[in-house]
């Protein structure tokens, strides 16, 4: 169980005299990134004027993100739609990736097959990278930095500072505090939800026979994962629209 809760360092990169620990969540991120990049390249290959098959899928997705950005941010949607779309699709894939956690780990494969090859691969379970606080905190911080950048870019430093005094000057400390609390709430909500549903699913896998957990997995992995991704993106767009309007 403890194994599940904390991020395991798989290996360490030594570069420029520092040790960079590579945890399983970062490896999961790389896998997800590779998946998304390959999917993108496959889906956007030779776009045709008359969309067909996979092009319909990609156009629908991009259109959905664009409309979402248009509706929530309005005039400046162009600058933010790619960011919102990126974190949305990344979070969706990252949050629901735990449905693949039923695949055997390398240790289990070694036990079953007895091949030395699997012994050399570090023990690695497929888990959502968003159950690692490092990942969600980085995402929350990035969103808040983008909100800050958006406010300064579209309203100028003066406009942003003036905005801090709204609706009345006494709100200044709260407005400043907002940047901290929003970062915390964004990252902790996502982290807590995904970690909790992941732990619950691990427990269920441990005590209930196969097949039955599938229904629960649909709720905890798929539904909760998509919901949290949507909430994160929705709040991000809300903060951005508040900053630029």
């Amino acid at each position: 169980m403890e194994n599940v809760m904390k991020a395991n360092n798989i290996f360490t990169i030594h570069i420029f005299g520092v040790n960079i620990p590579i945890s399983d969540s970062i490896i999961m991120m790389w896998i997800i990134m590779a998946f998304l990049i390959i999917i993108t390249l496959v889906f956007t290959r030779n776009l045709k004027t008359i969309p067909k098959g996979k092009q319909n899928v990609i156009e629908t997705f991009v259109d959905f993100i664009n409309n979402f950005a248009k509706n929530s941010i309005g005039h400046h949607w162009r600058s933010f739609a790619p960011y919102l779309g990126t974190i949305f699709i990344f979070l969706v894939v990252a949050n629901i990736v735990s449905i693949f956690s039923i695949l055997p780990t390398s240790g289990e494969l070694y036990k079953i097959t007895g091949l030395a090859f699997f012994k050399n691969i570090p023990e690695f379970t497929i888990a959502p990278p968003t159950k690692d606080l490092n990942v969600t905190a980085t995402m929350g911080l990035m969103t808040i930095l983008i909100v800050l950048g958006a406010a300064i870019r579209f309203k100028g430093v003066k406009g942003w500072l003036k905005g801090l005094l709204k609706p009345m000057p006494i709100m200044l400390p709260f407005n400043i505090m907002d940047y901290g609390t929003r970062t915390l709430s964004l990252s902790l909500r996502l982290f807590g939800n995904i970690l909790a549903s992941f732990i619950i699913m691990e427990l269920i896998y441990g005590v209930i026979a196969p097949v039955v957990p599938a229904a629960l997995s649909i709720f905890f992995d798929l539904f909760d994962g998509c919901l949290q991704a949507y909430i994160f993106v929705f709040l991000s767009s809300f903060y951005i629209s508040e900053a630029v309007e």
Partner: protein
Amino acid sequence: MLESLNQYKFLMVALNLVVLYLFLKRFLFKRVTQFMENRTNSIQEAIDNAEKNKSDAVEMKKKYEEQLKTANAQADSILNEAHAKAAREYDAIIASARKDAEAVVEKARAEIEREREQMLKDIKGQVAGLALAAASKVIEANMDNERNRALVDKFIDEAGAA
């Protein structure tokens, strides 16, 4: 849980996200959005063109109809003019023909008159001669002098006038 926070992991995650963001922005969102907008624009352009062509055609049709109407009116007026001119010329020809005919008739009548007078004069002369001859035979004297002849002419004139 908080002790697991690590600044290098932070940086790695941020690097991952930035790379993913840049990639998806360049190859997915910008590209597909641009593509769809280009398509929307080209469709809009095509529709606008079609609309414009249609309105042009309607305008042209109206213009042609107008022209046709004017042409019809012109044709009518030309025809009417021609009719009027023809009628005028017909009248003129008839009038001149009538005038010519009258002139000819008049001339013929004058000729006849002249010939008749000439004939009458000739007859008168012969009658006078005959009368004189008869009278001289009757009185056995030659009456054929200037005075007698004037007398006989006067007599014949009086008889002719009577």
